């Protein structure tokens, strides 16, 4: 049996998973929507991954999680490594593109830029305030225009005269877009304008003050949109590389970190059949009212977070477990 490593990246919109071997080669990959239920999404990812690997030949010995649900997923999977998505993306991308000097990342709810020099991340930034330059902005505008977001790229490429659209803020962009449509701009031009607006917003906010040098790798869900890729090439004057596995870089990165951590515990895909439940409750022990989250595995306490003092966790844990206990007793 050879060793394998599992990386899971649970974002706000999509959940990604990979299984890699000791050389970092991807043995199995999965990509699906989170749909507001990270635990269920992870279980579905596990099912897809398990179907792709030969259970008799390889054994997953270490697990890493990343993305905004990394703590919850880490608890559920008993992960050896829980890493922030910025580091995971940098590690993942560097393993495939060792010469990269700038990484653009636009996901569903956030966007980031990572500056790499001589193979080491030296600077990064993340969007701070709003989602104007992210995938969810594109999806909402796609709905307004009644065009599937997957077809955005083709529309944009057909445009010869992209419409100028203010990308500073979702609200402004939307009213600008409606106005341009009403005075007679073509759909293709408006979509190309939107792609340019996303890029302008990204470079002015996330990329502000950063030295953007090639080679540039662009990833995250929005990188699948060729319209945005072209707009980036126009704005930066560099060729933009998009990896076929670009959406999996976070999962790949955290699998590599798990591999290099040296921490190994045999992992079973059977965790899919275990019932996990999360309970969020306000502590109410003081006016701070910490929102404490408890993860239960088959009704028993597994992990929890959100408390600012140890008393908070004890209070909520006792309350929740007492409730669960009485429920279990009644059954």
């Amino acid at each position, binding site marked *: 049996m050879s060793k394998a490593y599992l990386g899971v990246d649970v974002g706000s919109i999509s959940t990604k998973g990979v299984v890699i071997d000791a050389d970092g080669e991807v043995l199995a990959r999965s990509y699906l929507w989170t749909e507001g239920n990270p635990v269920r999404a992870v279980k579905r990812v596990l099912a897809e991954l398990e179907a792709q690997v030969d259970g008799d030949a390889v054994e997953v010995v270490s697990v890493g999680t990343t993305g905004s649900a990394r703590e919850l997923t880490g608890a559920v999977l008993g992960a050896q490594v829980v890493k922030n998505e910025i580091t995971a993306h940098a590690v993942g991308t560097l393993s495939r593109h060792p010469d990269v000097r700038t990484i653009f990342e636009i996901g569903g709810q956030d966007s980031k830029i990572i500056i790499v020099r001589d193979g*080491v*991340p030296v600077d*990064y930034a993340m969007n701070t305030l709003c989602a104007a330059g992210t995938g969810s902005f594109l999806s909402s505008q796609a709905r307004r225009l009644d065009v599937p977001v997957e077809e955005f790229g083709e529309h944009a490429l057909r445009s010869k005269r992209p419409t100028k659209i203010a990308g500073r803020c979702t609200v402004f962009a939307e009213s600008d877009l409606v106005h341009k449509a009403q005075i007679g701009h073509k759909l293709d031009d408006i979509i190309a304008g939107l792609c340019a607006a996303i890029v302008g917003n990204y470079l002015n906010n996330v990329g502000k003050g950063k030295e953007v040098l090639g080679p540039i790798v662009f990833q995250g869900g929005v990188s699948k949109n060729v319209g945005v890729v072209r707009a980036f090439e126009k704005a930066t004057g560099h060729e933009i590389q998009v990896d076929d596995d670009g959406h999996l870089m976070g999962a790949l990165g955290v699998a590599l970190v798990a591999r290099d951590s040296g921490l190994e515990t045999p992992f079973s895909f059977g965790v899919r059949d275990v019932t996990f439940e999360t309970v969020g409750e306000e502590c109410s022990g003081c*006016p701070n009212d910490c929102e404490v989250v408890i993860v239960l595995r088959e009704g028993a306490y597994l992990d929890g977070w959100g408390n600012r003092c140890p008393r908070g966790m004890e209070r909520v844990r006792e309350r929740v477990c007492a409730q669960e206990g009485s429920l279990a007793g009644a059954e």
Partner: protein
Amino acid sequence: MSTQLPASRPFKVSFPHMGNYSIPVRLLAEQLECEIVLPPKMTRRTLEVGARHSPEFVCIPFKYNLGNYIEALEKGANLLIQAGGGCRFGYYGEVQEAILRDLGYDFGMVRLLGGWKLRDHIGDFKRVNPRLTMLRALKAYKLALRQTQALDRIEDYVRRNAGFEVQDGAFEEVHEAFLGELDTARDMRTMAEIESRYLGELEAIPTERPDDLLRIGIVGELYVLMEPFSNLFVEKELAKRGVEVHRFVTVSNMVEHSGRKHTAHLDELIAKSGDYVRYHLGADGTESVSMTYQLMQQGFDGVLHLKPFGCMPEVNAMASLQRLSREHTFPILFISYDAQTSETGLKTRLDAFCDMLRMRKQRPGDAAMADGAETLAPGAERSTA
């Protein structure tokens, strides 16, 4: 004169929190010879009530101050103290007073405008307590300053070492005990004794300092730097990640460079800024840029720049800081604070920042690393990395 007294005595005096400085401020307030009502400890409720009654686009210190006032008034305070500041903060007292009056509270307010000099404010204090003399006020001021110095020295030691404690919470325990004792000290000798005794206790705490430890300096706007609740306890979060944390904006330092020495201090900061500042940026902006440049020269691994969202002086500073960061490949993490209380975003950014600094450190031959360390003369370098 900008003091309005409550309609009737007895006066119950209160003032906003900022870090643990309520300890020396209480000592000063005692000279007014009236009951002191400390606002309750900062909680999410403080921020909620403060933000609810504040203009949306005002900076976060305003909202915390207002929350402190409301919670103090609820506890029975009727005389509030507000100090000035080097930015629009200087006008906050007036606005907060108007908001609180609109809310129907009956109270008096002492507004200390025009800097830190005692003789400018003695008139206001004497109206509250006619028995107060300049001599007594001066004595109290000196004592409060000594107490502040003890506080700042101890907390500086904690910041630099807590990240390496062998037993979790060891530093916090000693720190808490120190605060309790310092709060009761009312003469120079006791204060000095408490300071040196607790410094000894802190030094005796077992620590393990790794070879590759990170040294990070924190610069930025003074309120979010000094009030841990408002910066989501960023110093503790860094310590948890094994970081030696340095901060230079403290009340002791501010007092030391106030008054007549203020201009000379600014000139010195500008002179030591490697030409990244050529004139004063207002409030703490000059210091943010100059200290960042100096820390880079001292070989620090990175700098955190904190500001309330919309803080004009620090926005000014950021333009220079971004250029400095780019030209020297020196890592600076910019963080804006507003009324959000979720720590998740902050933790993600801190994790990534610390990971990044460690990855840089593991490649000592890296050109980007060598640049920006000790050896460079101010103004002479342009990064080629």
